[in-house]
């Protein structure tokens, strides 16, 4: 580490004003602050510094995502093995998934960071670190067979139109990773939904078995197309372990729970948002159970199954708690989370077109987060104003 620091100090003059590599200043700056805590201090006023700056925060979120990512890789291989009977062993399945997922991670980071570097250089700012998390989230919320070029297009769209035009990291209204997914979802629906996208039927470097026209429905897809109210797949433990078809990182409740513990232990994500998303979803699902809509399997599905399936857990833990796009006041977090969970279930049950509602629910509530905060603050002000009157 010391040697690395010395090396950075040695090459630094090249990147400063007048140095021969000045054009790559933001790249150098980004790498340096990524590896080391910045050394500069504020020149004016009183500032309290914590060892926890936003780059360190992002790194912990990435670490929290690792269990779900690793499990996602394994599950990609497992589902492939199950569907094609390729005869892979444990490590075979894992490496198959690794080879299938790695290109997506690379594409997402290269495109996203590339745009960030260009923008930072152009506006003469330092590189924002926000894409570290988005870059790993994006490959985790797409189906395994999503082609790389449309992933690149969607990532570029999201970084430019959901983030940079609003002023970069910390200024965005919408969650960037979810904008990538919503773009893919509406622009290329044949690659993002339906039965043919969730399990890979390709070989990667000779690993696996090629199978044309492979279709596997997700449990939510089965429930959506069911014609009777008992048409959903009964609850089983595979839904908790995550051995079901779905987007790469979203299937395993256990792996996501490990990530959630890391986030809660380090105080990065808010337990208020997280908990109220689950409560909102459960309350809504129980409500639909009681209503018992005729012929609607989604409405009859028990609440715990609703919470275990699809992107519900992943969205609740990693997306709804995004500190930038969710509500910031304490009461606001409860309201925001509850409505995210409730809307996710409403979209699942009542919308005949989409089997999953988590993405749309979170994006919808992203719009309302500032409004919720505004009214929470206003009600506090009125409450205190009243108290002053009473005391006088």
């Amino acid at each position, binding site marked *: 580490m010391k040697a690395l620091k010395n090396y950075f100090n040695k090459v630094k003059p090249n990147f400063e004003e007048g140095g021969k590599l000045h054009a790559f200043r933001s790249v150098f700056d980004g790498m340096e602050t990524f590896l080391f805590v910045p050394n500069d201090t504020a020149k004016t006023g009183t500032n309290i510094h914590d060892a926890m700056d936003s780059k360190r925060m992002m790194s912990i979120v990435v670490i929290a995502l690792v269990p779900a990512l690793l499990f996602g890789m394994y599950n990609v291989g497992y589902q492939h093995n199950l569907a094609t009977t390729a005869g892979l062993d444990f490590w075979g399945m894992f490496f198959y998934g690794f080879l299938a997922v790695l290109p997506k991670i690379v594409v997402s980071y290269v495109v996203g960071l590339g745009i960030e570097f260009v923008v930072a250089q152009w506006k003469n700012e330092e590189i924002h670190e926000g894409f570290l998390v988005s870059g790993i989230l994006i490959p985790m919320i797409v189906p395994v067979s999503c*082609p790389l*070029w*449309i992933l690149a297009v969607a990532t570029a769209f999201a970084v430019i*139109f959901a983030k940079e035009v609003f002023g970069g990291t910390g200024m965005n209204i919408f969650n960037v990773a979810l904008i990538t997914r919503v*773009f893919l979802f*509406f*622009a*290329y*629906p044949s690659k993002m939904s339906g039965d043919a996208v969730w399990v890979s039927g390709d070989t990667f470097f000779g690993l696996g078995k090629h199978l044309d026209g492979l279709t596997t429905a997700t449990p939510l897809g089965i429930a959506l197309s069911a014609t009777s109210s008992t048409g959903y797949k009964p609850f089983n433990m595979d839904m908790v372990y995550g051995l079901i078809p779905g987007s790469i990182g979203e299937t395993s409740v256990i792996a996501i729970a490990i990530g959630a513990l890391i986030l809660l232990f380090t105080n990065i994500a808010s337990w208020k948002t997280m908990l109220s998303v689950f409560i909102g979803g459960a309350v809504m699902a129980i409500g639909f159970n009681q209503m018992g809509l005729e012929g609607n399997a989604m409405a009859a599905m028990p609440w715990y199954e609703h919470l275990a399936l699809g992107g519900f857990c992943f969205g609740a833990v990693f997306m709804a708690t995004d500190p930038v796009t969710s509500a910031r006041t304490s009461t606001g977090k409860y309201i925001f989370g509850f409505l995210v969970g409730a809307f996710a279930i409403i979209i699942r049950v009542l919308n005949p077109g989409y089997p999953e509602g988590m993405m749309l629910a979170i994006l919808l509530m992203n719009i309302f987060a500032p409004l919720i905060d505004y009214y929470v603050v206003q009600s506090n002000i009125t409450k205190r104003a009243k108290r002053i009157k009473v005391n006088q």
Partner: protein
Amino acid sequence: MSQLFSKKNKEVFANPLSINNPITVQVLGICSALAVTAKLEPAIVMGLSVTVITAFSNVIISLLRKTIPNRIRIIVQLVVVAALVTIVSEILKAFAYDVSVQLSVYVGLIITNCILMGRLEAFAMQNAPWESFLDGLGNGLGYAKILFIIAFFREILGSGSIFNYNFVDALHLKDFGYLNNGLMILPPMALVVCGCIIWYQRSRNKELQEK
């Protein structure tokens, strides 16, 4: 003759095409710009219809401007516009039926187009017929120009065609894994494309940038 094309009149005509564009600068007429621009053909027909109606309603209102009682001027303007819209709509139905079906209610809704009422109120009520005609023509063409640009990108990326000539199928691009962007056909992307045009125009024209 030189009076007709004086410097002031040229500006009246040319400004709406660039630095005072009704869509990108005044942000009027957005609704129809989003609705009819999925393909080039309806967008061009719509642009031309609005141009004709704006130009002639401007002339008619300008001729009547001294006799219209101030308190009922909006009603008079609406009657004139409605009459012109009905004529254009009937002509489209007679000679370009397919396009008029594609445009559906949006031809009728030209009556409520903010650009029209804006020009009538802001320009035709105070100016002579010839200037009003130029102003209407300029604003209509400025609107048509933006519609054309939006529709051009939306048709290429969304439907993979230009003027209904499907180049994606002709070049067999789908064999290479190419897919048309379904979001481009939906109105939200029209707004994004329109936003990009505004972005481009503002970064080119310093006088349009707010401090």
